[in-house]
């Protein structure tokens, strides 16, 4: 398919964005680098740059639209050929159409996680193994994938981020002259792309020659053992899990040396490589280099001024966050001072005294703690949900269970194809029998609402337990922030439960409310359970299709019964057993401390048929550690 109407922005005409350009050039120079991610806010030329890589790789990039069905991406059955031949004839998918060119996924965060993971796997292996609809085949896969993500909308999980060899941030703090020049080039490209290409023809050719030369030097380029060690140390310093970071460091260092016309890696190459290899891996955000900081200085000053005027914490509903690291989300580093993520990071630092330790949370909504030891994969809340009302993205087809309502014509025809030679067609081009019918499996991105039901009674004030609770809730809130969940906050103390924050996407607001939450008084656990279930019943009725979850955080020590004279604890357990809100999942987090733990919270979880976690078990890192030490 010839590309229509796309004239790429010339690579050489992209101003600034040194990291992102370097990452792409590295991948083009060194074929062992296969996956590059460009992250950044809207309008920072992420996509323009990704596409600009096309002409340097031998043609336009092969675009993988977010809505593409799986058989189009990975391959399937060629219906026309199958009819002719009378046997299943497989057909390659988009991944196999690259033929040396780069594959491109725009807004990769919008893509189904499972599909994206499979694509990354295929690209890394360089082949697509096809097992579908009776066809079995293997095709080569494009060996370079460039993806973009706008973390303001939603972000990739740390696990998926790690799968990208290189990652660069598109923001770079351009100054006034830069912005004027960028605006001029941008406008010219929209109006007359040919004129812009003409303007940068010489520079563009220079980039091509530099790439050519680097590919010739690369096989001869060496990296000393000492520098290998430096790379490994840097990698270890960011405590990146696994060795993907280390390997990327070596490959990128070699590429950077070769791009500079050298056959030996220097220390500065390694340092440059670190910026694009390690930032997206756990817990590391490199400082912007000195020269960029100078350029940014002016703007940062202004930002400080505004901050002083009292704007803190709260921002637009869906500001960005990084991959889920507490102190410094990966997005916070090189994007310059004007960044939601940095604001949040800063706000979080301010609150450290009132709020206990924050951490990367386990997938507490996805199942028990033992199952969810690593990252947040698996069938959690945020997967695409199968949709039953013929609305949603057509993802796959299947043999219908009974009568097919939403017929997948393409799959039906493919299923009928092998039999066409045998069947009499009675004037029709295709003879379809009932057994050929396939129906569409549609998927909708499912929203998720989480109501935090927080015990703010005096018993948690003891030994600063409340600080730990706040730390845990905020960690879960941040997790929600990345996943675009809606969160609500209900607190109970004294004699009632109060809805502090109705469910909202503005997780930042939840942050603030949680920080200010007062503690003290008795524990009306029963009243809280009733209030929460009533609220969620009406909420889920008005939000069909929304996955709803209530997270109860308590030490389980109730002392205010609903009915005068009743045993508050027994009453709460009984109430828990009688509560039934359709579709609502419960998670009970036991906030009781060590020896003083009271088994009521666990009983509540059983009665609510919900998952039970001890507060400490929510910490993904600590859990991973304990699992690791148990194995070793």
């Amino acid at each position, binding site marked *: 398919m010839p590309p229509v109407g796309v004239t790429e922005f010339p690579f050489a005409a992209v101003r600034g964005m040194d990291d992102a350009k370097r990452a792409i050039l590295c991948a083009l120079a060194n074929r062992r680098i296969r996956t590059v991610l460009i992250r950044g806010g809207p309008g920072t030329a992420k996509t323009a740059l990704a596409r600009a890589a096309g002409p340097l790789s031998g043609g336009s990039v092969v675009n993988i639209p977010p809505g593409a069905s799986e058989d189009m991406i990975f391959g399937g059955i060629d219906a026309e050929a199958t009819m002719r031949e009378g046997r299943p004839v497989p057909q390659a998918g988009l991944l196999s159409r690259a033929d040396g060119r780069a594959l491109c996924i725009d807004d990769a965060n919008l893509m189904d996680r499972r599909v994206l993971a499979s694509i990354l796997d295929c690209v890394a292996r360089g082949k697509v193994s096809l097992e579908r609809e009776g066809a079995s085949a293997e095709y080569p896969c494009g060996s370079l994938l460039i993806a973009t993500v706008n973390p303001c909308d939603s972000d990739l999980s740390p696990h998926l981020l790690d799968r990208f060899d290189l990652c660069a941030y598109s923001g770079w703090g351009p100054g006034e002259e830069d912005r004027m020049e960028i605006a001029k080039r941008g*406008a010219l490209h929209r109006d007359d792309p040919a004129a812009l290409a003409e303007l940068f023809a010489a520079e563009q050719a220079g980039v091509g020659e530099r790439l050519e030369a680097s590919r010739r030097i690369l096989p001869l380029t060496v990296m000393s053992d000492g520098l290998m060690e430096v790379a490994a140390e840097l990698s270890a310093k960011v405590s990146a899990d696994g060795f993907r970071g280390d390997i990327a460091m070596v490959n990128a260092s070699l590429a950077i040396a070769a791009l500079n016309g050298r056959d030996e890696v220097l220390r500065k190459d390694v340092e440059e490589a670190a910026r694009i290899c390690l930032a997206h891996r756990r817990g590391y955000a490199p400082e912007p280099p000195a020269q960029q900081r100078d350029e940014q200085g002016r703007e940062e000053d202004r930002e400080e001024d505004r901050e002083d005027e009292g704007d803190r914490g709260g921002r637009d509903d869906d500001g960005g966050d990084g991959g889920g690291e507490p102190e410094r989300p990966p997005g916070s580093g090189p994007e310059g001072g004007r960044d939601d993520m940095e604001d949040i990071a800063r706000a979080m630092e301010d609150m450290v005294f009132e709020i206990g330790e924050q951490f990367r949370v386990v997938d507490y909504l996805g199942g028990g703690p033992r199952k969810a030891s690593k990252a947040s994969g698996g069938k959690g809340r945020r997967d695409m949900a199968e949709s039953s009302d013929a609305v949603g993205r*057509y993802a796959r087809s299947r043999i219908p269970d009974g009568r097919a309502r939403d017929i997948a014509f393409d799959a039906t025809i493919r299923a009928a194809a092998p039999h066409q030679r045998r069947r009499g067609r009675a004037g029709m081009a295709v003879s379809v029998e009932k057994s050929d019918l396939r129906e569409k499996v549609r998927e909708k991105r499912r929203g998720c609402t989480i109501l935090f039901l927080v015990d703010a009674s005096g018993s948690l004030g003891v030994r600063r337990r409340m600080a730990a609770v706040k730390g845990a809730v905020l960690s879960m809130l941040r997790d929600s922030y990345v996943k675009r969940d809606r969160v609500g906050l209900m607190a109970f103390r004294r004699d009632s439960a109060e809805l502090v924050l109705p469910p909202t996407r503005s997780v930042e607001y939840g942050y603030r409310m949680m920080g200010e939450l007062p503690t003290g008084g008795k524990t009306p656990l029963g009243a809280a359970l009733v209030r929460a279930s009533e609220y969620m019943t009406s909420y889920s009725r008005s939000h069909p299709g929304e996955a709803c979850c209530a997270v109860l955080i308590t030490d389980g020590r109730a002392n205010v019964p609903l009915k005068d004279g009743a045993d508050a604890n027994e009453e709460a357990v009984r109430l828990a057993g009688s509560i039934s809100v359709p579709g609502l999942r419960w998670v009970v987090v036991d906030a009781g401390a060590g020896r003083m733990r009271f088994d009521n919270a666990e009983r509540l979880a059983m009665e609510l048929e919900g998952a039970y976690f001890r507060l400490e078990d929510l910490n993904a890192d600590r859990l991973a550690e304990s699992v690791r030490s148990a194995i070793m």
Partner: protein
Amino acid sequence: MDNTLFPFAAIVGQDDMKKALLLNIVDPGIGGALVRGEKGTAKSTAVRSLAQILPDRRRAAGCAFGCDPSRPDRACPACAEAISSGRAIQAEEARMRVVELPLSATEDRVAGTLDIEHVLKTGEKRFEPGVLAQANGNLLYVDEVNLLNDHIVDLLLDSAAMGVNYVEREGVSFAHPSRFVLVGTMNPEEGELRPQLLDRFGLSVDVKGDRGAERRMEVVRRRIAFDSDPEAYTEAWRAETDALRARVSAARGILPKVSAPDPVLRAIVAVTSGFGIDGHRADVTMMKAAKACAALDGRTEATREDVASVAALVLSHRMRRRPFEEEAFDREELERCLQSA
């Protein structure tokens, strides 16, 4: 002329909304407009009525995608083939249209899909164009855009970003041009728009109901007059409508000659960075909007006044909002930024 449409020229007030829409018609490259406002503030009326003043454009006759014959770089596969093999493309003049995207539209109807009938008759695959094909070269209108399904929004984002609709589904692999002026209307009470989609709109405007009794009476008077005899009412406004249409057409004609000198560009950058806007889309958009604004006035050079008059349209949806707070566009801050440049 469709007489069921209230005359655009007869809409009372709402100058910002009208300006945002007109600028986009003058230069479709501005990137569309988002109109936010309460119920009953003439949002949908204004957008649909635009049809009366939309200019003519040249399109390839018989082409399902309405390709522009003068832009081979933006042609569909069939037209591109014809051009490269030297065949002349028959061109025709056609009026730009308002194409509506209904909220209930399914993905296959929006993006286009496999032509089932063709397959069953001939056994060959063929692409059946969808709404994004009709929208090419036209205005694509989404009412209640904040309620649109996420996966349809993804499709729109993709096309709006690249001007191309890539279809990879149901065994069809196809790409066709899909450049349109995206116009969305929404009532913020029903929920906000996804930030990614928000940023794709070149301009945005918040409309409020007119509070003045005098003007409200005028609105009601005109509406009643229209409802009682749409044809006569449309006719009564014919001269104004035609004049506006002529003005828009003329502006389109001179737009390529409009320049934005460096001081104007400097003012733009001063404003966007003064308002703390990330990314460069705002800069490019403001430059184009200022030029279109000059063109509407019949001038060939954009001025700082043009920048001042379009700044709010470009920036209001790009500023970060504090939760549960309405952030009004700060005119004084704008003045300060312009002074400093």
